[in-house]
């Protein structure tokens, strides 16, 4: 599989979201930025496949570019 799975895939999405916000609790912006970076690296290694990661990067960047365009 070379495409990023964007269909619903969480076994418990609400719990993940709460845990994500909780992980940033009491952190400064700088620390939050660092946490996000480390999270990206850990998850990227878990995914591993270059094509999937590339697709994720493209989709994330595209969504920013689209917002800027409107």
């Amino acid at each position, binding site marked *: 599989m070379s495409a990023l799975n964007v269909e619903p895939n969480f076994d418990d999405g609400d719990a993940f979201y709460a845990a994500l916000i909780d992980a940033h609790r009491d952190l400064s912006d700088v620390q939050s*930025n*660092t946490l996000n*970076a*480390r999270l*990206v*690296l*850990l998850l990227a*290694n878990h995914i591993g496949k270059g094509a999937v990661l590339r697709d994720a990067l493209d989709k994330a960047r595209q969504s920013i570019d689209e917002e800027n365009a409107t």
Partner: protein
Amino acid sequence: MSSGRQNPVYAYRHSADQDAASPRHHTVVIVGAGPSGLTAAIALAECGIDSVVLDDNDTVSTGSRAICFAKRTLEIWDRLGCAGPMLEKGVVWQLGKVFFRDAQVYQFNLQPEGGHKMPAFINLQQYYVEEFLVDRIGQLPRVDLRWKNRVTRVESRAEGVRLEVETPEGRYPLSCDYLLAADGANSLVRESVGAVARGQEFHDQFLICDISMHADFPTERWFWFDPPFHPGHSVLLHRQPDNVWRVDFQIGADADAAKALRMENIRPRINAMLGADRTWDLEWASAYTFRCRKLDQLVHGRVLFIGDSAHQVSPFGARGANGAVQGVENLVWKLARVIRGGAPAALLSTYQAERQPAAAENLLHSTRATDFITPKSPISHVFRDSVLRLAKRYPFARALVNSGRLSSPCRYDDSPLNTADADRFAPLARPGSPCPDAAIAVGGKSGWLLELLGGSFVLLVAGPSVPGELRKIDDLKVLELDVDFTDAAGDVARRYDLVGGAAYLVRPDQHIAARWRSLDSAAVGRALRRALGCELKEVV
């Protein structure tokens, strides 16, 4: 405690060419006597081709400059009869350590498997390398090496190249069939033919200090990111012969290089690193920035670009001089055969086809390492530091730490000179790859497979019998397993799968052209013609 090293000075000599009534003509002229130009002259001489080498200076490199020489480069120099003194003088190293702030993040070991004549790397100052190459040239009457001969003008025409040379006794003209431009990063030849090197310029400045000391540091490559003694920047420490150590400080884009080079500023920097109680002497210091750039075309008519004039990289990864020597090795056997009439001129176009991807690969790795070492934005800094933090704990992140991806030999996988595999083989020694070395025995004495390969094409066969017509082909040497050599340690079987009638066709530069499970004279003939460029379209 200074190493006491003094560079040799080579005398300017008057050439009869300077008295000629009309410009003297030579087959090959090489501009520049650095590692590329000197290696090219030696390799051409080994092929029976005369050359004239012109250099504007009268000595070897000032300062250590390139210091890391890779296994493949040493194998090439060994083939050319000059690796002996380099190995004797050089420092063998294989362990690298990476530090972030005050702690070691991880270490790597480059120790190759056994059964290779050459080590993974040696460290040796460029001035020694050049001196040993000049010494080798002294044994080769085919090389006319002219010091204090500065090329001032180059004119490339369809039928040949004309140049003007300035000497202490005045100017003289020359002409040649082929010009090898080995005149470095600021190549005059490149400018003269209107070639443009394109790529990226980096603004970060670095300060190299070669210091001599009697230290008890182990012979390892140490790389620091953001160490306490030099916060916010990187530092590299690497050992060279003569108890000389290379210390390379990143000093940033805004640093005042002239000020950084003053001894009163170098001393506290190094003392902060080594401790004030160590005694050391400064051998050489230099501040530099660098570019990663290359030519899109390495061949411009009869002008062929080699070394830094063709491609320039950052120092991280030891890809400059190593890439250069491997490029020269790729070019010379082709040029020699075109000159001797054993191959069509189109063969020269494969120097571009094979080495352009190699140059691009070196440039890519070198640029990526530079971006990791000197992050360009706040977020890339955050990611870089995060990788280093995670690397201490998690092995996956170590793969992302990039203090220079060290030079490894290029495989010409997509070369038009390869004959694709029709039979099943292990991928290691596939067509386009450099031949892996192997411990062998010749007449009961231990030796190395690479000592038997190169110079001409070689047909490496494992019985049962070699058709007589294959032994009559010019430029093809037959090498039979268990007749000419034995597989003393099983390396040949393991690395080549050379068993039961299998055969390999090996190019003069020790790269593999073709291989078969069983020997067929017609197939060998076709692969040989293909490897000589006979099936390429003629260049216009």
